[in-house]
């Protein structure tokens, strides 16, 4: 009898000592997802590769053309070989990685801003505003994203001058690609946010905020938005992967970021003409894209489980 009480106390103590903050619990759930942790590590290494590598090799070397060394196979001097105009592919993957990752992240910022704004306004106000915004969303949904991207890439192509930023030159097409990927991919996010807002705006805490005279903007951004952050974070994470793939698709088709600025995507442009003679042209940048996308998707999967307490952890 006494022993069982004692053990109860012990159990209780254990529970007490294990009380974790939501953040810690999230991290625990995330850690259980082994592939997500691995993905995070790989992503860290990829960032290190493309941003750390820049300290070793200057960008001029990555853009240096040597027509005597066209399409040479991987060697000691050029570990990944050289491309059609004799640029070193290894150094280009370093600088290309920077731009690809930058495009992925920035495009998602645009996507999240547009998607959250439209979704939040539609969901919160409802009525004709909702109807109008959702018709617009539907219209955007109806044209496959890649077609829309290509039309917009052509529309903005060459209209933005070269930019100087952090002592480096960026082809204006980088900005174009970021913006067009952002404004063609927000629709899914907007729908999620709208659905979330529609259910949350009926809750008591929103009613309470209303009765204390809180402004609509404050209710939207300070009361409801923090409560729907989980799905936004998950979908933004997966959005980074999608943005990197989208960039690769348009650059691959020749309408993306213009050389000499390298991206993993535009290094693949025209590579299909050399499938047989120079496979290193596409194997290295292509593998880096796959690795990045795969890691991001694993992290996104892990985040989904970590942020949703109801989800059953099913680590792969």
């Amino acid at each position, binding site marked *: 009898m006494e022993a069982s009480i004692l053990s109860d106390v012990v159990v209780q103590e254990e529970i007490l000592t294990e009380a974790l903050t939501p953040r810690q619990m999230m991290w625990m759930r995330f850690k259980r997802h082994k592939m997500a942790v691995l993905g995070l590590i790989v992503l860290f290494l990829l960032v290190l590769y493309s941003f750390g590598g820049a300290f070793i090799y200057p960008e001029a070397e990555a853009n240096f053309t040597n027509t005597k060394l066209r399409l040479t196979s991987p060697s000691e001097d050029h570990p990944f070989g050289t491309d059609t105009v004799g640029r070193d592919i290894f150094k280009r993957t370093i600088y290309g990685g920077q731009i690809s990752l930058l495009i992925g992240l920035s495009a998602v910022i645009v996507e999240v801003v547009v998607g959250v704004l439209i979704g939040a306004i539609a969901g919160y106000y409802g009525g004709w505003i909702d109807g109008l915004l959702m*018709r*617009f969303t*539907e*219209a955007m*949904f*109806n*044209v*496959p*994203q*890649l*077609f829309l991207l*290509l*039309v*917009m890439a*052509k*529309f903005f*192509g060459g209209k933005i001058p070269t930019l100087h930023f952090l002592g480096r030159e960026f082809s204006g097409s980088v900005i174009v690609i970021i913006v067009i990927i952002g404004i063609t991919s927000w629709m899914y996010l907007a729908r999620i946010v709208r659905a979330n807002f529609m259910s949350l705006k009926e809750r008591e805490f929103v009613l309470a905020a209303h009765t204390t005279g809180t402004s609509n903007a404050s209710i939207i951004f300070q009361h409801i938005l923090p409560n729907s952050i989980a799905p936004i974070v998950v979908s933004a994470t997966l959005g980074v*992967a999608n943005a990197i*793939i989208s960039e*690769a*698709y348009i650059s*691959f*088709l*020749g*309408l993306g970021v213009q050389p000499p600025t390298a991206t993993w995507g535009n290094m*693949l442009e025209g*590579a*299909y003409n050399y*499938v*047989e003679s120079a*496979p290193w042209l*596409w194997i290295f940048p*292509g*593998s880096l*894209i*796959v690795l990045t*996308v*795969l890691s991001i*998707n*694993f992290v996104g*999967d892990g985040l989904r489980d970590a942020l949703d307490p109801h989800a059953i952890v099913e680590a*792969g």
Partner: protein
Amino acid sequence: MSRYIFRRILQAFPLLFIISLMLFLLMINTGDPLATMGGRRVTRPADRERLSRQLGLDQPYYKQYLFWLIGNEWTQTDMDGDGTPETPGVRKGVLQGDFGTSLVTRGKPVIDIIMDRLPNTLLLMIPAEVIVIALSLAVGVYSALRQYSLIDHTITGLSFIGYSMPIFFVALTSMYIFGVNFKRWGLPYLPTVGMFDPKVGKTTTQVFLHMILPIFSMTVITAAGYSRFVRSQMLEVITEDYIRTARAKGLPNRMVIAGHALKNAALPLVTIIGLDIPLLLGGAVVTESIFAWPGMGRLFIDHLSRSDTPVVMGILIMISVAVILSQLITDIIYAWLDPRIRYH
């Protein structure tokens, strides 16, 4: 139900109007279709003026859109440049099914250009979609029934990788392995580009051989995503009460799975397929470019790069209509398959 369909069709018109206006305004500003008309020479200013007048490119945007939408039969245009409109228009407009004529291949109706290519794209898409559905159902169900076994883990892992793959990587890799290296190793290899070997001619065998790699690439990616979906649906369904009932009354396992579980697990797949049609069409652009397949995707790229507004608009509108229709058909099939669903 018929009222629901009717309303959906009515709703499609304003939607298509917004889409077409948006795309038209983008397209008309994408570049100069006249730039490449003089062949290698730079188009002369006099020619340029005459051409843009004849093609109606000198008109204000709203008029160009209006002519594209409802035609210009009802008005007269100034063709000879003397300032007085004298020639009656001949275009009927999209609303009457006239997509106009191409600016690049002069005078050829857009509808003919598209119809030349559409069968080629369907030749890839339809078999790909059939294989995807069959494969993902088989793999998804198999994987779900052996949950947490080694084979399930392998399948889930592989499908995750396949799902994250960009299509060009699968395409290039498969070309490299089955086209290039098989040839090098002296194995029977697959052709990598085009629709047929010009030396042999367009025979059924040739086309079939050239279809294998593009279809393979499209299938791998889509089937990976779908089989994940089927697996999770199946896992959900097999815990339902009616499955236990079916087992309890002594139904053989095969019938429980095929007759009860699969039917219900496959149902949501209909929606996914309907929604994924635009994605598939997008993938076709990349696939067709890599494999030099003469389909709609490549047609789109070729004419977009030369700012051929009528052809590009024709393709985009047809795709939008296809997407809207496929969503409507999806809704109808879904309601038909699942009697619990009623649309109002």
